[in-house]
């Protein structure tokens, strides 16, 4: 019923190609998150879905209608904008009621439905205030209430949490998941915050330069990235990359680091990059691993980041327990969890040596 299909969607602005051909199927009731760096075409894709932008070519199907020709208001969807787009001149009540007023819903019904939505979002006491008098989190809830009140089949959200502070963002995440579960509607959610993508998505769609890079459940995108871009995009701090090549013996070779590749299929001499996440870097005792000097410590409270100078062009970062005994200047050996090391083609950045 609210299945969404995007077919060969392209959008150009003059000479700029914002979206370069996106094909995507979103199931009914699915929570899909579009992530990607700034300018990669997330908003443009969402806007074509909502009808605010007209595709240069390609088709948008919602339910089982091609909606290219429909006005945004006719597509039965609700949208939450990055800046919330609450109407500053209307009370919270009238903000929520807007969509109903447009459709000339009778007054009594408007009151009932607004109240219902407000209660669902726990903002009933705010109804007489203006958006400017609401705190960030409250305003966020108002925007959600305004969207759910018309009971759309599809929810579009464009970085709705980006203006909130870290704490609130974490709370609203939970709120949104709850909402999704209770409404059973299809959610398409845009963000460039990977924590949001990871925690909320049923499936993540990673975009870069107008194209889809990978689609999949959060953990598989995190642990099984399709290419170096996706691998680097997820994770704070970012995945460690070590550029090297496949040695004559089939082992991975880089300055300071050598790793046996074992069962994988090596093409000696080919350039590859090794990738490993900081939490999979282990500080070993003497003997095993590669030697390095601790150049910087960043305590995060629960964990500590250890910057290891092993002789390569950049440090390798290891995430260790906050209580681990490490000091700047220590000389330590480190290893990678072998099952968590991934390789990328040195030229194309695609996964290699699987």
């Amino acid at each position, binding site marked *: 019923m609210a299945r969404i299909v995007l077919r060969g969607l392209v959008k150009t602005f003059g000479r700029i190609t914002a979206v370069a051909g996106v094909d995507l199927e979103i199931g009914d009731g699915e929570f899909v998150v579009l992530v990607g760096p700034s300018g990669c075409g997330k908003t443009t894709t969402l806007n074509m879905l909502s009808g605010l932008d007209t595709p240069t070519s390609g*088709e948008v199907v919602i339910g089982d209608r*091609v909606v290219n*020709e429909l006005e945004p208001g006719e597509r039965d969807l609700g949208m939450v904008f990055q800046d919330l787009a609450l109407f500053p001149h209307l009370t919270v009540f009238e903000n929520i009621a807007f969509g109903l007023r447009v459709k000339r819903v009778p007054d009594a019904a408007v009151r009932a439905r607004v109240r219902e939505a407000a209660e669902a979002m726990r903002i009933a006491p705010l109804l007489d205030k203006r958006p400017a008098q609401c705190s960030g989190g409250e305003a966020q809830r108002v925007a959600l209430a305004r969207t759910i009140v018309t009971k759309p089949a599809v929810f579009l959200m464009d970085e709705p949490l980006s203006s909130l502070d870290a704490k609130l963002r974490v709370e609203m995440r939970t709120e949104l998941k709850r909402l999704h579960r209770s409404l059973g509607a299809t959610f398409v959610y845009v963000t460039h915050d990977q924590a949001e993508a990871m925690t909320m998505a049923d499936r993540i769609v990673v975009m870069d330069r107008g194209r889809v890079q990978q689609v999949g459940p959060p953990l598989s995108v995190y642990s099984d990235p399709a290419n170096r871009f996706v691998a680097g995009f997820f994770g704070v701090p970012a995945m460690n990359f070590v550029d090297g090549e496949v040695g004559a013996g089939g082992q991975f070779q880089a300055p300071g680091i050598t790793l046996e590749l074992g069962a994988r299929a090596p093409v000696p001499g080919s350039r590859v990059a090794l990738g490993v996440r900081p939490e999979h870097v282990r500080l070993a005792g003497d003997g095993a691993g590669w030697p390095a000097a601790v150049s910087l410590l960043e305590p995060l409270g629960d964990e500590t980041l250890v910057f290891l100078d092993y002789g390569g062009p950049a440090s390798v970062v290891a995430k260790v327990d906050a209580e681990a005994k490490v000091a700047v200047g220590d000389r330590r050996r480190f290893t990678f969890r072998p099952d968590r090391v991934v390789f990328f083609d040195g030229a194309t950045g695609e996964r290699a040596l699987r």
Partner: protein
Amino acid sequence: MADAHAPTRTAAVPAPTRPPRRIAAWLAQERVFRLVPFVLVEGLFLLLLAIPFGLTVYISLLKWRASRPFEQAHFEGLGNYADVLADAEFWWALGRTFYFAAVAVSLELLIGFVLAMLVARTVRGTRVYTTVFLVPMMVVPVVVGYNFSMIYVDSGPLNQLVAPVAALLGFDPRIRWLSHPIAAQWAIILADVWQWTSLTFLIFLSGFSALPRPLVNAARVMGASPWQIFWRVQLPLLKPVIVIAVVVRSMEALKIFDQSVLLTFGGPGNSTQTVAFYLWRQVWQFNKFSFGAAASMLLLVIFAALIYAGIYLLVRQRSVALAEGRG
């Protein structure tokens, strides 16, 4: 939202049925809607300005004094233009106008800027000052005209105020503000400055309050004196606003008419005759309609040159502002 590039529908998916569009809906279409106000406004301009403009051109090519019936007017070609160009009074009036505009606008800009700067720096009383300073703008120019004519009377309050100074310097305190050729020019300029400094003040004050506060703070922390902050930070940032003030005020000042009629009627002699007033006399006092039309056209040409200079400045400021990440 319809677009020429909209793809054709696939057969598999049923075409959405659409309600029949009525005129309102047709108007609401973006490609129609966007043009409605444009067409309306341009239509108005065409109807009210372009046709009379054409008429002016036509009349300017006739030989027609209104003291003869229009039917007796005959084609004259460019003779009227030659006459205007040969009329010393036209040039004199034009010169006066530029002189008035230049002096008055410079004073207005200077005073308005200084006032705005002072108010912007003041903490207390800003509202009161702003309110008071804006008052002149809201007074009808005709009222300003006779208001100042009262003040300028030789036995009026201005001379009374001047009297002690006059006594000191030993000249007659009864300055003939309106009948002495030079005093009369200043009388008009001062009235204009009194009234329109309020506008330049307003524009500059808007500019100052739009100036990002952190920039000034940054300069202060780096040890810049108020003077340096002014020259190196505020003034350059205000350049676009200054250009606006110059353009807006010059535009209006070149049209100066009211005060020249109301205060001095162009006198004594023609020492305060502005070009607008000159035109008015040629037409309504001397009934030289075709001559007046030719003079109007010439004036338009001269003003047009200035207009484009002004607009060029504006556009350039705008693009600089864009390049600097503002605007």
